[in-house]
C-alpha cells in the first residue's frame, strides 16, 4: 500500500485543520478565524455538498417509489464506503470485517426493539456503542497485524461474530431470523416507510461524508495518512500510532453500525446471513478502490457509480448481470488501478491522459 505517492494522499489544509490543531485559541477567535479563513477556493466543496444535499431532498418529491428505493440503497453504500475509507483508505488498514459492525448494529436494534420494547431512537445510540466497543476490543490486538494478515483476521472476526449471533438462539432467534414489530400497539416506534428511510439514509450518507471530510483535514487525518505511508516513521515523529489506528477503526465502526441499525429497521425481518453477508464488506472495498481510496470524493463516486451500475445491469441483462459486473470490475482494476477519481485528478494536474501509460504503471 505504501507505493502510493504522498502527493495523492495529502489533503489540502483548510480552516478546520487550524481549529483542530488548536491554533485558534479563544472561542470567539476560533469562530471568526474560521469564517475569515473561508474563501471561494476552499469552501466550494462544502457548498457543492450542500447543493447536492438540497437537490436530493427536492428530488424526493419528484421520483416514484422504485427510484426512491434505489437511491436509498445508494445512500446506504455511500455511508459504508466512506466508513471503510477511513480505516482502509486513509489509515491503510484494509479491514475485511466491517460487516461485523453492520450486523452487530442491526442485531442490537432488533433485539432491543423486539425483546425489550425499546424505541428505535433509544436503541440507535446503543447499537453504535456496541459497534465501537467491539471495534476497540478486536482493534487493539488485531491492528498490530499488517497487510493481508489484518485483512484475514478481521474477516475471521466477522465470521466469528456471525456464528456467535447465529448460536445465541435464545436472544437473537439464531438462524431462524428476527423480526422487528412495526405495526399496531406492539411497535415501539412507528415504521418510517419509504420516504422516511430515504430521508434517514440521506442524512446518514451526508453525515458520513462530513465526518470523513472533517477528519481528513484535521491533524488526526494527517496522522492517519502518516500511518498509512510509513507506520514506523509516523511513530518516530511522535504520533501514537496505536491510538490513531484504534480511533480510526472505531469511527469507521460507528458509521457502519449506525447504517446497520437503520438497515435493520428498514428490513423489518432478517437473518444472520443477511446482515453479516461478507459481500457487504467486499462491496465497500470495491467501491472505495474503484472510486479512489484516500479521498472523500473517491468513495462517494465509487459507491454511487457502482450501485447504479449494478442495478442497471440487474434490470437490463437478467442472468448475465453478475458476469458483466465482474468483467467491469476486472477492466476497471486493470485500466484504472489507482481508482477512477484519483486517475482523473492526477491526469488533470499533470495533463497526462494516456490510459496505456496508466496501465504500464503497475505492470510487471
Amino acid at each position: 500500500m505504501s507505493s502510493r505517492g504522498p502527493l495523492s494522499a495529502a489533503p489540502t489544509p483548510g480552516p478546520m485543520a487550524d481549529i483542530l490543531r488548536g491554533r485558534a485559541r479563544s472561542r470567539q477567535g476560533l469562530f471568526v478565524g474560521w469564517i475569515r479563513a473561508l474563501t471561494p477556493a476552499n469552501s466550494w466543496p462544502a457548498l457543492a455538498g450542500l447543493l447536492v444535499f438540497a437537490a436530493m431532498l427536492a428530488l424526493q418529491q419528484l421520483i416514484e417509489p422504485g427510484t426512491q428505493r434505489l437511491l436509498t440503497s445508494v445512500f446506504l453504500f455511500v455511508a459504508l464506503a466512506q466508513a471503510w475509507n477511513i480505516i482502509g483508505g486513509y489509515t491503510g488498514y484494509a479491514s475485511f470485517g466491517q460487516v461485523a459492525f453492520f450486523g452487530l448494529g442491526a442485531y442490537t436494534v432488533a433485539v432491543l426493539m423486539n425483546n425489550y420494547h425499546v424505541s428505535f431512537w433509544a436503541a440507535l445510540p446503543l447499537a453504535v456503542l456496541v459497534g465501537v466497543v467491539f471495534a476497540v476490543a478486536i482493534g487493539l490486538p488485531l491492528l498490530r497485524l499488517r497487510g493481508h494478515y489484518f485483512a484475514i483476521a478481521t474477516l475471521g472476526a466477522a465470521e466469528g461474530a456471525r456464528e456467535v449471533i447465529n448460536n445465541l438462539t435464545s436472544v437473537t432467534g439464531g438462524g431462524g431470523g428476527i423480526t422487528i414489530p412495526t405495526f399496531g400497539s406492539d411497535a415501539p416506534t412507528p415504521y418510517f416507510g419509504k420516504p422516511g428511510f430515504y430521508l434517514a439514509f440521506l442524512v446518514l450518507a451526508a453525515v458520513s461524508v462530513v465526518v470523513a471530510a472533517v477528519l481528513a483535514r484535521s491533524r488526526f487525518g494527517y496522522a492517519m495518512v502518516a500511518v498509512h505511508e510509513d507506520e514506523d516513521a509516523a511513530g518516530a515523529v511522535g504520533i501514537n500510532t496505536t491510538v490513531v489506528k484504534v480511533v480510526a477503526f472505531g469511527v469507521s465502526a460507528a458509521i457502519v453500525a449506525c447504517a446497520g441499525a437503520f438497515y435493520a429497521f428498514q428490513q423489518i425481518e432478517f437473518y444472520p446471513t443477511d446482515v453479516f453477508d461478507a459481500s457487504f464488506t467486499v462491496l465497500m472495498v470495491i467501491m472505495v478502490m474503484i472510486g479512489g481510496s484516500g479521498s472523500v470524493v473517491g468513495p462517494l463516486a465509487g459507491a454511487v457509480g457502482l450501485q447504479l451500475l449494478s442495478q442497471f445491469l440487474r434490470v437490463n441483462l437478467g442472468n448475465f448481470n453478475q458476469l458483466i459486473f465482474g468483467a467491469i470490475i476486472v477492466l476497471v482494476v486493470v485500466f484504472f488501478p489507482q481508482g477512477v477519481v484519483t486517475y482523473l485528478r492526477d491526469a488533470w494536474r499533470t495533463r497526462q491522459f494516456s490510459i496505456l501509460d496508466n496501465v504500464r504503471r503497475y505492470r510487471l
Partner: protein
Amino acid sequence: MSQFLQAAAYGVVQGGLLGLVAVGFSLVWGVMNVVNFSHGALAVTGAYVAWVLNVRFGLDPFLAIPVVAIALFAFGYVVQRGLINLVINAPIFLTLLLTFGLNLVILNGLQLLFKADDRTIDTSYASQSFAIGAVNVPYGRLAACFLALGITVALALLMSRTRLGHAIGATGMDRGAARLMGIRARHIYAVTFGIAAALAGVAGTMIATVGSFNPTTTPGQLTLDAFVISVLGGLGNMYGALVGGLVLGIAESLGGLLLTGTWVNAIAMAVLIVTLIIRPSGLIGKALYSGRVEV
C-alpha cells in the same frame, strides 16, 4: 470412544483434502503476494471439467485428473500472464479486487452453463468403506487423502529439487535479483499461478468424487478454508498447508462431535485470530518467502 475415533479418522482424510485445496492458494500468496479470491472458483471449475468428462465419456474421476490439471494449468497461465501481471505492482488489495472480479465472472459463467444444482461424480467405489476395528474408512476419501499427500510431496520436491522450483522460489524471495539472474519473472509468475490453478482443479475433482459441489456456495467456502489453512500453515510452505489442513479437518470433525449447532465455526475463527496474533508466520516454522513486491 469409537465415535471419537471415527470422527478423528474422518477429520484426517477430510484434512488431507483440505490441505490440497489450500496448497495452491498458499503458493500463490507466498510467491506473488496475491490473495487469490477466485481459488475456490478454480477448484469448482476443475470439478465441472471432471464431471463433464464423467457424464459424457464415462471417464473415471481419478483418470480425469491429468486432463483437469492440464486444462486448469493453461487457464491459470493465461489469466496470470494476461491479467494479474498487469497490476502485480499495484497496492496489494488491487490484486485481491481483480481476483474477486474474476471470481464473479467464472462463477456466473459456470452457473449459466451448468445451472446452480448440486452435482456429484458417481463412482461405484467412492462411497464404499472398509472397517478398521470400529472405525469405518470410505475408500474414496482415503484415496483422495493419499493423492493429496502425494501431490503435496511432489510439489515440495519440485520446489526444492528442480530448476523451475528454484526459479519460483527465487522470484518469490527477491524479484529484482531473480530477474538480474536471467529468470523471466512474467513467465515464472504465470507458471506459478498455473500450478496453483491445476492443484485447485484436482482438489475440486476429489471434492466432487467424495461429496457434492455447486457453483454458488462451494467456491466461497473453499476459498475461506484455504485462507484459514494457509495462515495456520504459513505462507508458501507446502507441508504447512498439509498440516494446516489436517488441523482444520480434525478440529472441525471433533468440534462437530462435541459442540452443538455451528459453535465449531466460531471456535475455528477464534483459533485463526489467536494464531495470527501469536504466530503470524504459521504453526510450523517460518514462511518460506515473505511476500515482497519489487521491480
